[in-house]
């Protein structure tokens, strides 16, 4: 229950961090809030030679608008993200999901970037990023690159990040002012890992039809998945369509099995969650349209 002995590095700039990560690569672990890495170190699931603490890099926790996107620095603490009026306005789905992330005590230290870099299949922040079609900004000593979230999460605890790359920011697409959102998950206890989670972002046109739809499931496959829903555009945003979309979603995913739930149970929860989040997101979208008119 104590970690292996490691060297501790505390860079003050991204350049320094990328430098030491470039030297140590797989031998290094990047530490932000430590809400996941801490347990993994203490349980010796990870045995790094070097721990690179990025929490004191100045400016790595900022929120800034870049055109159509809002960028959140990798070390932005979850509780601070939740308090940000700008994020609440521009990325409402994230604001809805954050109360489901861990507990009050872990959100006070856990970061957005840490959750994304760790890529737990049931994590809420990666699910929101996939549904909102956001991106992850990676920096190595030599270059910076952006990877679409839908291509970043490859599997359980596995991402497209290379060993010499640091997650420096997350880019969230700014939501349309008339887009409605909803998020919900089912866990054994609130704050535990979700057995299944669903997130929805939807726009409705003047005649009550679906103009845009993004729907995602977390905790079901070994990574957060966006359900292909383009076939439902133009359909009435009603109960029948919701039921059809839920069926379609359940058909299109391959559910994991573990000690908590078998695949059938996960699919049953997914169907139920979609039937809960879609009407709420539709209601939210209608309300937003009314307010805009």
């Amino acid at each position, binding site marked *: 229950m104590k970690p292996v002995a490691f*060297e501790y590095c*505390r860079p003050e700039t991204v350049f320094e961090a990328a430098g030491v990560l470039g030297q140590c690569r797989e031998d290094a672990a990047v530490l932000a809030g430590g*809400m996941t890495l801490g347990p993994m170190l*203490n349980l010796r699931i990870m045995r790094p030679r070097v721990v690179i603490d990025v929490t004191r890099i100045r400016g790595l926790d900022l929120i800034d608008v870049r055109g159509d996107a809002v960028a959140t620095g990798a070390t932005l603490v979850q509780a601070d993200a939740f308090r940000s009026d700008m994020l609440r306005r521009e990325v409402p789905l994230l604001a809805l999901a954050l109360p489901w992330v861990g507990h*009050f*005590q*872990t959100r006070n*230290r856990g970061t957005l970037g840490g959750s994304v870099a760790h890529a737990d299949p049931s994590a809420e922040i990666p699910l929101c990023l996939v549904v909102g079609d956001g991106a992850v900004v990676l920096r190595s000593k030599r270059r910076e690159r952006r990877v679409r979230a839908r291509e970043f999460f490859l599997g359980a605890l596995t991402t497209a990040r290379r060993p010499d790359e640091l997650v420096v920011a997350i880019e969230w697409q700014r939501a349309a002012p008339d887009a409605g959102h909803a998020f919900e998950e089912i866990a054994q206890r609130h*704050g535990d890992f979700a057995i299944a989670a669903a997130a929805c972002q939807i726009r409705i046109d003047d005649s009550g039809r679906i103009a845009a739809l993004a729907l995602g499931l977390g905790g079901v496959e070994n990574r957060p998945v966006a359900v292909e829903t383009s076939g439902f555009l133009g359909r009435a945003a009603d109960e029948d369509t919701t039921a059809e979309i839920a069926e379609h979603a359940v058909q299109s995913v391959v559910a994991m099995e573990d000690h908590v739930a078998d695949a059938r149970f996960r699919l049953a929860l997914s169907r139920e969650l979609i039937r809960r989040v879609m009407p709420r997101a539709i209601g939210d979208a209608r309300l937003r349209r009314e307010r805009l008119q």
Partner: protein
Amino acid sequence: MSMLRLAPNARHRVELNVNGAARCGFAEPRLLLCDFLRHELQAYGVHVGCEHGVCGACTILVEGRAMRSCTQYAVQADGTHITTVEGLSGSGTLNPLQNAFLRHHALQCGFCTPGILISATHFLRENPHPREAEVRDMLSGHICRCTGYAAIVEAILDAASTIEQGAG
């Protein structure tokens, strides 16, 4: 400026403020903050339960925020301000929250209590008029094996109204 690098298997000086006093001690990089507070600084009110961030017994305030001290390392806390349960009230006295725990029998063995008092302190500062559901949500970050939580919820709700009346 050169980056701070601390060698493994060597003890490094850590200076921080604990409960209003400047303190210092020595820590290997892998020493958990909770173990440092207990064994180097004698803050035995920091209880160590699961050592992986689940049980909440080691919860402390760092810069005023409630968080686990078992999933961070002592060397990370250099230069920070920390409050442990020892710093919540003056010596030999109970603050309104602690008094409410006493009145409602909100503890039995007391192992989880320091962490819960710390969390509730931060929580009530952010949310002075909580609903019961919000208190339970905050408490979901702690494990208590004695009380069944009902008395703790009552104590925190009672403390909120006591603090509001300024009767503490």
